[in-house]
């Protein structure tokens, strides 16, 4: 009894299929919408700006407090806060940019900028904005990281340094030195020893992004050069890759790192990792901007210090990464570009703002703000220490190709295979070079 209907249904499906596949013309896509440029706004007109960022709870609280404080300065401006954790933020922000529904002011991660600026024109040129004051920034820092296609599309939110974040209270208890300069051998030995003594403990906390940074550091320390070159070629040899992966493989086997299967569930939110919260892992190689959230999940009285990241004994370059914590950009689709620029300028330069924000995005990039935040006692000494150590040991600055998120993803995928023991270092090195070469070519061709 049902047969006829099902038969008919199938017939129709096939019919639709053939009908559609025979028809290959579509409709031409209209060109992008015109940008609405921000008009001038009289000071009593009510304006709403959307401001989006990611972070932990301290960053949220401090940023919202700063937004509240801005109400005193510009009572007609309401700022809607849109914040979340890191995981999923990238997808969200890019979806919004593509759909033209992004916030007026948005926090971006460095790797996305190269990709975004190559795809389209999304951001206001802050260098041309009369409302935004960029004079207080270190101009090299600004040029290295904020300028794309000769436009200042984004400004650094803070100076961020890769460092070792250490739970000193726990480290002392476990007999791990906190004032040494680690090299890859010594940290391996210390981690191995710790895990052998107590199998529930691991020396290092990391997600796949942190592991990627460790491998990149290792590569740079071996070659003394960029790991991918400006001309879209691979910057290291197979031997370099094999050696780096061999170290990673052996460190994973020995329990120097928490197994990636456990830690990667907390990708982008390592402060949620139960092993860190329960104080079973004393050290996290991470950016200084994550220090606060890592600190705040621990009980009061736990001391957090920082030290230099791992540097090989015979390093040709320290590989120590100094980069903006994140960047702020203003959408060129914003209806209130002037007001947004005004707010951002206040947010970055004003002393009161700096005192409220403190170190929630690591050390402020504007000198006067830095001083104001220090004077207000709002910068953690451990962060200052990390940034100072970083600046004095800074390695070469990554080029924009190395900061491309698609390129980084290639490396991350292969690191995962090594971490899970699914690829030998040898296989992984071959695959890395092959995949990188093809991805770099793809990106180059797209330009």
């Amino acid at each position, binding site marked *: 009894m*049902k047969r006829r209907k099902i038969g008919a249904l199938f017939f129709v499906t096939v019919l639709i299929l053939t009908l559609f596949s025979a028809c290959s013309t*579509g409709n031409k896509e209209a*060109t992008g919408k015109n940008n609405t440029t921000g008009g001038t706004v009289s000071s009593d007109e009510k304006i709403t700006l959307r401001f989006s960022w990611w972070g932990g709870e301290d960053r949220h609280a401090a940023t919202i407090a700063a937004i509240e404080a801005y109400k005193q300065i510009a009572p007609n401006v309401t700022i809607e806060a849109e914040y979340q954790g890191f995981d999923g933020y990238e997808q969200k922000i*890019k979806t919004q940019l*593509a*759909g033209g529904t992004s916030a007026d002011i948005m926090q971006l991660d460095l790797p996305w900028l190269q990709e975004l600026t190559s795809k389209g024109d999304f951001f206001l040129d802050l260098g041309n904005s009369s409302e935004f004051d960029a004079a207080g920034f270190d101009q090299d820092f600004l040029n290295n990281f904020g300028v794309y296609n000769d436009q200042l599309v984004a400004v650094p939110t803070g100076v961020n340094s890769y460092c070792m974040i250490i739970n000193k209270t726990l480290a002392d208890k476990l007999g791990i030195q906190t004032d040494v300069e680690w090299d890859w051998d010594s940290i391996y030995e210390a981690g191995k020893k710790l895990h052998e003594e107590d199998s529930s403990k691991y020396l290092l906390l990391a997600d796949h992004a942190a592991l990627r940074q460790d491998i990149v550091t290792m590569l740079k320390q071996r070659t003394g050069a960029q790991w991918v070159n400006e001309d879209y070629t691979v910057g290291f040899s197979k031997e370099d890759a094999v050696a780096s992966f061999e170290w990673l493989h052996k460190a994973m086997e020995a329990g120097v790192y928490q197994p990636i299967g*456990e830690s*990667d569930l907390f990708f982008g939110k390592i402060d949620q990792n139960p092993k860190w919260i329960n104080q079973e892992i004393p050290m996290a190689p991470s950016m200084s901007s994550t220090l606060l959230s890592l600190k705040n999940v621990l009980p009061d009285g736990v001391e957090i210090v920082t030290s230099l990241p791992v540097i090989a004994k015979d390093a040709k370059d320290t590989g120590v990464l100094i980069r903006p914590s994140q960047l702020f950009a203003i959408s060129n689709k914003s209806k209130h570009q002037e007001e947004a620029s005004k707010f951002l300028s206040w947010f970055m330069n004003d002393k009161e703002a700096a005192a409220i924000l403190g170190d929630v995005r690591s050390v402020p990039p504007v000198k006067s703000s830095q001083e104001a935040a220090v004077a207000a006692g709002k910068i953690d000494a451990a962060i200052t220490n990390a940034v100072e150590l970083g600046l004095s040991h800074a390695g070469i600055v990554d080029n924009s190709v190395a900061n491309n998120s698609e390129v980084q993803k290639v490396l991350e995928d292969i690191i*995962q295979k090594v971490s*899970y023991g699914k690829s030998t270092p040898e296989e992984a090195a071959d695959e890395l070079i092959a995949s990188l070469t093809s991805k770099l070519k793809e990106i180059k061709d797209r330009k």
Partner: protein
Amino acid sequence: MSVSHSLVGKTQKSMKKKIKAKKNYQYIGLLYIAPWIIGLLIFQFYPFLSSLYYSFTDYNMVSSAKFIGWDNYKRIFTADPDFYQSLKVTGIYVLLVVPVKLAFALFIAVLLSAKLKGINFFRTVYYLPSILGGSVAISVLWRFLFMKEGVINNMLGYLNIGPVDWLGSPDVALYTLGLLTVWQFGSSMVLFLAGIQQIPNDLYEAGSIDGASKFRMFFKITVPLLTPIVLFNLVMQMVNAFQEFTGAFVITNGGPMKSTYLYALKLYEEAFTFFKMGYASALSWILFLIIMVVTAIIFKTSNSWVYYEDGR
């Protein structure tokens, strides 16, 4: 309860009615279905066709679409290892989840078909997970339950098993997600239950007079008579399973090591994080074709395993 019988009983009647009334047209009917036709054209046909067009373009929503012929398809098949990975993961997922879910649903439906006291209560309990479906809350719950430190491992600890790395191991994570889907077997179960209630009692009576065991009757009477519903469930669950998204996105975000990188995630990522709308459209067409081929195969083979009661 007239509605619940209709799946099995009503179609035939309506067929006959239609044939009878074919002579004079009542054009006002078109007016009533006009909203649907408009919706179909704008929200289904147009997107469907334009997705085919976009699949031959390079389009990032910012600059206008550029026609590039078969390039997207070429790249998908020759230069995108993630495509094969997501295809593999999705294939395993579908092959695993759909049969297990249906078998489970059928088994429970048979158990529940007996006239026991409180059967409605059990039906409610078993159906409960299904109504929460793909909600984020359930994904959050799953993440908590199956974390390394989570309650499942703590319970297994009492039995001296584990701890199992439910979500962290690339060999296990997909099955943990599959379990979430199987857990929601309720709607298939209710359908089977409705079907079983349509089976005339005298068939079983005749069976027991012939001395057939219950086991035998299940396979000789219940199963064959339910095959049309099996077919329906199979197709719908298959189409859904191919597009599963929320669980893999919220719980594991495709990881570990892309072991839960389902096709829908790949599609989402290409479209909405890399803006490759053309490329993603090509991916979506490949998915569409796969689903159509699988559906066609199911329907083709259904002639040999679906039992149609003639002249009922």
